[in-house]
């Protein structure tokens, strides 16, 4: 059984995608700990430790991802969960921008996967399955 922590970071209140991601990841066989919206970095890290999570699935829709995510990888390392998978999706910058640049920026900040706006949950699920497999973890896929 693989635990993941889900939430929307910062002062961001966009809740719809979060609710759908919870259902989709749960239906895909993950144990989802959904912290909802407006989650601070500290809350994410505490939940990850508490649930022994393999991944933090972070959404940021409102455009403040850069400010809100700054230093997250470093804090994970400090907290002893430096190798946790960090996923980030949503509308990451203010305004339309070149996704390649956005991706580079957040990769440099220590995120493992960065998703462009409006993707379907399956894209995240497939990626997580692949990454877990890469780490020797295989997820039993439930019958859907």
């Amino acid at each position, binding site marked *: 059984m693989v635990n993941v922590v889900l939430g929307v970071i910062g002062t961001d209140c966009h*809740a*719809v995608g979060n609710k*759908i991601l919870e259902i989709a990841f749960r239906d895909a066989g993950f144990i989802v700990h959904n912290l909802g919206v407006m989650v601070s970095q500290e809350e994410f890290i505490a939940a990850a430790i508490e649930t022994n999570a393999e991944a933090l699935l972070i959404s940021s829709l409102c*455009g403040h991802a850069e400010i809100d995510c700054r230093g997250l990888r470093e804090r994970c390392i400090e907290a002893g969960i430096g190798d946790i998978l960090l996923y980030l999706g949503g509308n990451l910058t*203010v305004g339309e921008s070149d996704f390649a640049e956005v991706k580079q920026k957040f990769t440099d900040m220590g995120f493992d996967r960065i998703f462009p706006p409006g*993707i379907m949950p399956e894209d995240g699920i497939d990626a997580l399955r692949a990454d877990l497999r890469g780490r020797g973890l295989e997820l039993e896929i439930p019958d859907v």
Partner: protein
Amino acid sequence: MSTLSNTRWPAARLLASRPEVLDGWKTGRQVEDLEEAIAYQAAIPQAKRFSIALRVADPAGETLVQPRAGVCLVKEHINLLQALEQEGQADLLPTTIDSYTRHNRYADAQAGIEESTHSGHSHLNGFPAVNLGVHACRMVTEAVERPIEVRHGTPDARLLAEITLAGGFTAFEGGGISYNIPYAKSVPLERSLLHWQYVDRLVGLYAEQGIEINREPFGPLTGTMVPPCISNVVAIIEALLAAEQGVTSITVGYGQCGNLYQDVAALCSLRQLCGELLESRGHGAVHLSTVFHQWMGGFPPDEAQAFGVISWGTVAAAFSGATKIISKSPQEALGVPTAEANIRGLRCTRQVLSMFKEQQPLATLEIDREHDLITLETRQLLNAVERLGAGDLAVGTVRAFQSGALDVPFAPSREARGAVIPVRDLHGAIRILEFGNLAVDSEIKAIHRAFLEERAQAEGRAVTFQMVTDDIYAVSKGRLVGKPRSQRSTMGRRMP
């Protein structure tokens, strides 16, 4: 905290809490002198008063156009608004506030301002009016020719209101429910209602001095398949609460659901019922107007498709006879629009509005039926709120949300049960799949159920949550009603 009740605050109560409010951030000091603020407002030309534009447009049957827009830096924001009023021909202007300010996190907003100043472009998703202060607000409101409204999503907007009203804005969006439930996670409803009584009372104080500030409850709530009776009852409650504090110009709003008949009926029912209730509760002098929001849910990423969504919303707004329409841009799905994209949204909206303008209003059986249904539901909800509050609307609201008698779907706030689950019927109208404790009677529940069974049968599948998910994605994938995977068209392909 003083206890909540729907009675007009004595001016002294507001003045007593003012110092603490102004202490929220250092710019609070700039508004200590309320007289000065009022005098400043008094000098604003009529053409720039929001409520006057509405008072003129409404009887003339005009639908005014207003975009959403706000960036971090003053100069940049002024350029943006000027472009919107000149090239975009917006009738009414907005100033959208960033989301740190919305949560009173002025220190974070300050960091955003610095980052933006440094990089030369906006790192904040709005205009941080509190941090920038009264002078900056006045620079903005003086730089344009049309009325400007503060648009935000702030549970505690007291300081924001103080600063922006002193700054010359003539309209202020929000309300204790509509700017809490969809916009926050853990702000007690009682607290946000009290804080919005402060705002309304402040507007009332201005009104007593002859300065009319327009107030607009935020109609669309979570923007995602909100059943019309729910958004309408919230708008009506907030209108009544505002009127009680002395607000004299109120615009009630509604976010497009997508089914034309339901949309037209919803806005008409809202206007009628709200007008009737204001009247019967002694607020007949309030000037009531309406606002229709183009599609508030997820947009298609493709710009041409987005133009289709924008136009379809405009058609519904035009048919519903709204006093104003809030326009979206073709870049909605991607990010805060550039001025240029925002202008394109405005021009498309205007074109459809003007082509429709002279045409006869829409009157159909479907509209009548929806109108009756929505009005009935809304009355039941409102009655429940008053019953729970033992006659007090404010107290009743808190209790109704606690018990689930009132609820908002997809809300992030813990103050809403979130037990109501909406879904579309066969024709795309929003119906309720799960009612939770929503205070409507069994007859109404049966009507909704029957609508859903009709769809289930047509699609050959049971009414389940899968339908809801399909519906949530539908518009962004090119349609209104979410079809089972097997029946989907090829238009909505996965993004790369």
